[in-house]
């Protein structure tokens, strides 16, 4: 039986409202933390839990919190990153819409831990209806004494508000988010300085994903050690996976990080297998920016071991034969899907979302999109494949923020694993407009055991 820590109450009638949420044990963690723990003890529990950032990078949350600078007399801020925009990912929206008080509860406890008295939830502008749900829940929390001055008589003050973006994937990058929250264009900042030292209004700031903040609630309630018992190795706790693509049961699933990819795709508890009885062709396990895996590397690693739904196992083999858990945007492709088209589609996304500040991303994403478009529509040349490889290589690692990498990796992985399908597009320009290539040939990897 899978343990759920975030979504266990999600189907309780009326859980989005304060009364039902409270009756079902809501805000217990605030009582516990504010009345019986010091801020440092909360940080300590989060460290013990092994919780890693759920937005995509997977950086240990407790460690991130301990980096926060605490100069005398300077306010600090906690910002919740609800700018969920990575294609394939829709878990945060689900959580906020279904059980908004869980996020607010997490914000209170986390703000307490960090000594922040003014916190913000930055939500993507397209989720305006979710913003309204959150604002209603925040008003309820104020009315019931969980927000405002002197919460529970402990002397801790916290103001929380939610503020929208207006259509920019880049604002999910934490310094772009901060810029946007300051009412500016979402241009990522040049680092250093890092937000932990100079963030919102040049004050020390922590930015955490919605799911990360929500996970602090069970960690405080049950203790970090209890949380760390779930999962394998450095992948502790549960993870929300947004499952989409050619599967029978798309949706948001809370998994313990110990199940196999095979179980996740084929079991009826989760995705319920490939739709229409088709064969699996490929999988993007962590949102559009992570490397795509061909069918033979999805359920097994190159070494032939079962691949698990964990940070480590999904990354097993590095970029040569592995991918990443990322934001948990799990996209499944059946045998009828075209990898070139999909790569073009993703690249168009990154081109559209590039902020334009630094030259490799601004110019490189558009160039890749044009070359991919040409290949997809049967006008490509064989050299285009190597050209693409070279462009992505010159973007990766050379940009201000990770959007450059996010744009480069899908292209690199597609060429790495599906080169024969790209070549087919060049060799069969007519056929590629009429039908799809189907499954690619399995390759063996010498690096498998490394």
């Amino acid at each position, binding site marked *: 039986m899978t343990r759920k820590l975030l979504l266990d109450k999600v189907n309780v009638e009326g859980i989005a409202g304060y009364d039902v949420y409270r009756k079902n044990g809501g805000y217990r963690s605030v009582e516990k933390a504010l009345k019986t723990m010091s801020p440092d003890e909360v940080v300590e529990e989060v460290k013990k839990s092994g919780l890693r950032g759920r937005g995509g990078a997977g950086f240990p949350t407790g460690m991130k919190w301990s980096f926060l600078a605490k100069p005398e007399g300077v306010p600090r801020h906690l910002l919740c990153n609800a700018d969920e925009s990575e294609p394939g*990912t829709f878990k945060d*929206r689900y959580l906020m819409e279904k059980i908004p008080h869980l996020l607010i509860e997490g914000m209170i406890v986390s703000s307490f831990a960090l000594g922040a008295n003014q916190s913000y939830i930055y939500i993507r502008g397209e989720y305006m209806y979710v913003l309204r749900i959150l604002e209603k829940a925040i008003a309820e929390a104020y009315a019931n004494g969980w927000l405002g001055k002197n919460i529970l008589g402990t002397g801790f003050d916290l103001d929380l508000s939610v*503020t929208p973006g207006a259509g920019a994937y880049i604002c999910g990058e934490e310094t772009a988010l901060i810029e946007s929250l300051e009412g500016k264009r979402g241009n990522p900042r040049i680092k250093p300085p890092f937000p932990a030292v100079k963030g919102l209004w040049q004050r020390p700031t922590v930015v955490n994903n919605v799911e990360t903040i929500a996970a602090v609630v069970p960690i405080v309630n049950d203790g970090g050690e209890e949380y760390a018992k779930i999962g394998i190795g450095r992948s502790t706790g549960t993870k929300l996976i947004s499952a*989409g693509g050619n599967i029978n049961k798309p949706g948001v699933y809370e998994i313990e990080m110990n199940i196999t990819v095979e179980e996740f795709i084929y079991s009826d508890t989760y995705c319920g297998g490939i739709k229409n009885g088709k064969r699996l062709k490929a999988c993007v396990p962590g949102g559009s920016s992570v490397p795509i895996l061909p069918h033979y590397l999805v359920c097994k690693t190159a070494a032939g071991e079962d691949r698990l739904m964990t940070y480590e196992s999904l990354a097993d083999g590095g970029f040569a034969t592995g991918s990443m858990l990322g934001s948990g945007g799990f996209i499944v492709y059946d045998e009828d899907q075209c990898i070139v088209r999909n790569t073009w589609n993703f690249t168009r996304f990154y081109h559209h979302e590039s*902020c334009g500040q630094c030259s490799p991303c601004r110019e490189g994403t558009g160039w890749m999109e044009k070359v991919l478009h040409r290949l997809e529509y049967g006008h490509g040349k064989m050299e285009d494949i190597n050209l693409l490889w070279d462009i992505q290589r010159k973007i990766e690692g050379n940009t201000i923020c990770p959007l450059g990498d996010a744009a480069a990796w899908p292209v690199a992985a597609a060429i790495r694993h599906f080169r024969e399908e790209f070549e087919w597009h060049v060799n069969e320009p007519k056929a590629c407009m009429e039908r799809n290539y189907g499954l690619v040939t399995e390759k063996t990897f010498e690096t498998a055991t490394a």
Partner: protein
Amino acid sequence: MSETTHSQVSFSDELLKEVNRVIGQFPEGKQKSALIRVLHIAQAEFGWLSVPVMDYVARLLHIQPIEVYEVATFYSMYDTKPVGKVKLEVCRTGPCMIEGAEKIVKYIEDKLGIQDGETTADGIFTLKTVECLGACGYAPMLQAGEKYHEHLTEAKVDELIEAYRKNPVANYMGQETNLNSAKS
């Protein structure tokens, strides 16, 4: 669609109260942080962000007009040209593409007699393809105003176009919320 700019620009008392509430969420002197939300309010009120509208917002927040122009042209949700009363924003990214977003776009184009980015002659609908809206498990989908319409079929598109034609509302205040989307 007939307007090419706005001559009279000012918020009602109710909206000014909302603007002040939003400004009040930020510390003294950080009122620029309210800009993105105030532009949403202005766009819902005036239909699109013309220069007089943006200049008005700049005055409300005590910032330079160029600071507003820079922001308004950066974010994809803002319209700096007139649009229809209801924007049909069809997601075209990744999972939505797999699930047939292109067919839905084509269907709407044919049905309304407009292309991506255009507005119907009666000024009601604007069709726009957009990037991932975070509804990948419920693809294909479109957003109209604040509402998400998911698991689209041609029949569903017919239905919602009919409904919006009768009642083309996309106001900022008092928008019905949508709790229909996700099943677990």
